[in-house]
């Protein structure tokens, strides 16, 4: 199937790869169908990117960047109740893939670890959960994208505010 996107133009996707969020994402209940598009990794074209676009099938401009939070925060775990597994049709926890939505603030990519997306990779159904664990906020810094420096400059450690 072909979908229209504002960022990638017309994209051909396999209809079987559509991920359905029956409740939508928080604030976007009317958009339930998404596809994952791998982010381009221009510096290492052969290498998989750590970031994916979660692109709405129905609204061309609606897309989020998602990533695997455990790449950045090794202690991160999403508690899933038996009832929530049932709702996602999960029979085994291994079938669950957790993503977090990524945003950019100044030069930092942040992850919304308080509202993770849990996807049943078998049935391709997903849900955005709300965690009550206050250690994980909606804006956890993941990556600092340092502004470009002069080419002659040696790599310099950024000063960290005390």
């Amino acid at each position, binding site marked *: 199937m072909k979908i229209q996107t504002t960022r990638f133009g017309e994209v051909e996707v396999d209809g079987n790869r559509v991920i359905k969020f029956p409740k939508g994402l928080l604030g976007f209940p009317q958009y339930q169908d998404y596809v994952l598009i791998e982010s381009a990794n221009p510096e290492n074209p052969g290498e998989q990117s750590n970031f994916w676009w979660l692109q709405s099938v129905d609204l061309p401009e609606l897309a989020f960047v998602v990533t695997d939070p455990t790449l*950045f925060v090794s202690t991160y775990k999403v508690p899933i109740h038996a009832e929530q597994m049932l709702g996602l049709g999960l029979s085994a926890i291994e079938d669950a893939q957790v993503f977090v939505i990524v945003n950019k603030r100044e030069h930092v990519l942040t992850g919304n670890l308080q*509202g993770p997306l849990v996807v049943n990779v078998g049935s391709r159904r997903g849900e955005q959960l709300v965690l009550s664990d206050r250690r994980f906020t*909606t804006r956890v810094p993941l990556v600092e994208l340092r502004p470009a420096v002069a080419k002659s400059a040696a790599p310099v450690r950024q000063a960290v505010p005390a």
Partner: protein
Amino acid sequence: MLVLSRQRDETIMIGDQVEITVVDIRGDKVRLGINAPRTIQVHRKEVYEAIQRENAESAHIQIDDLTGADRHVRHKQRPA
């Protein structure tokens, strides 16, 4: 909005499965105890709203915003 007065240790019921009890009142702080089936998610509203807000802001991200992102992740340890 339905407004009810309750004293400490008194409860209201919502449907036949959700109970909300006033556990403690101190100054302008009220502690509530909630009994509900696990299928009903209970959250502080501000957390729910923060995630909604973050989703809305995150939807503005553009391709250029990821420039160099993978380069900075690459040296991080991938989980086994």
